[in-house]
């Protein structure tokens, strides 16, 4: 049976995630997040765990890192490098589209 309700959500970035919330959203331990922030793979580099807040970008990136580490048994450094490259590819593609060029798929 289908039911419908109206739901008002919160846009991340207006109300950013805490350390615990990010860990829960990524199904990881908070220690995993702390290690990745301290290593510079996540977050904005600010000091003080209690002040850490995470944005939409952080959530997307954290899930990407986690998947790379798990699926490929990748070292965090390698996963971060791949995530950086993926983000760069997406950004360049977006710029291409904005400039009116469509990316070619297929040979």
């Amino acid at each position: 049976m289908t039911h419908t309700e109206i739901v008002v959500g919160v846009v991340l970035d207006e109300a950013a995630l805490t350390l615990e919330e990010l860990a829960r959203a990524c199904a990881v331990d908070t220690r995993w997040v702390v290690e990745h922030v301290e290593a510079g793979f996540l977050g904005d580099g600010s000091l003080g765990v209690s002040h850490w807040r995470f944005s939409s970008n952080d959530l997307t990136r954290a899930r990407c890192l986690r998947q790379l580490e798990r699926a490929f048994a990748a070292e965090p450094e390698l996963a971060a490098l791949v995530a950086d490259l993926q983000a760069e590819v997406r950004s360049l593609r977006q710029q291409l589209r904005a400039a009116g060029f469509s990316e070619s798929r297929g040979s």
Partner: protein
Amino acid sequence: MEFRDYYKILGVDKSATADEIKKAYRKQARKYHPDVSKEPDAEKRMQEVNEANEVLSDAEKRAAYDQLGSRYQAGQEFQPPPDWGSGFEFSGRDFGGAGGDYSDFFANLFGRGGAAAGGPFRSAAGQGGYQMRGEDRHARILIDLADAYHGAVRTISLQAPVADESGRIVVREHSLKVQIPRGVKEGQHIRLASKGSPGIGGGPAGDLFLELSFRPDVRYRVDGRDVFTSLPVTPWEAALGASIETPTPSGPLQLKVPAGSQSGRKLRLKGRGIPAPAGQDAGDLYVLLEVVLPPADSDAARHLYQEMARELAFDPRRQNGQAKGV
């Protein structure tokens, strides 16, 4: 709903070892990852590969799938048997970061994105009489660019694991009307409290995170909060200047095309991109002029072109510094 042959998707034999499955998954992931693949259906194939890996890399799910799969072929019409899942217990490990984009086939067998309460299986963690918060779930939704300008209410359909009358976890489809706030950007998340997986033992439900993507629109391209569009103009509008009604995501407006414009000229309309929350700058709308020549498909049109050729001492190659005739 069709039966999915996960072994075929990963390209491995049914007797493949865990290591062979891992290697096959990595090979396929490299081939179909949407960021690097040249395959036109890369995203869809990557989802299939992720899904196959989720099942075959998990000994419990693989055993359950194998038991079921012995009776089906790939593509064959499939309905889970009524006793599906009985006798199995999952350890409650998560489904990995595949993003929750699972097929109906997967969702019916294992649930969609929920971990501890995955599909028709009872979680071992759920048997102990303690409370546990439900998992957060993730989904990606497509919205129109106009929704980011004006805000909107959109209905989304989700499949979620819920407990039936006998306490068994089953997958049920339900719809949510979600308010899309004005000013959202592509890639942003909307967090819906308590709309994730149900809790265990009366624990609170998890949250649902909706990642926003804009539905492709041939008229507009988006970069952050900046929006880009093309506007075809006639040669005389470009040469002499004109005021042209231009469609924009926020409604039509009169655009002043400066005299002497060339094809490719970019006009910036400050603050006409995606609106921003208080304290932030709205995006800009960029209009790219495309001068379109009328076809010389009548005597009158040809005559006008010939007259221009005679009257206007115009050589664009000379203007560009190129030698004539080269």
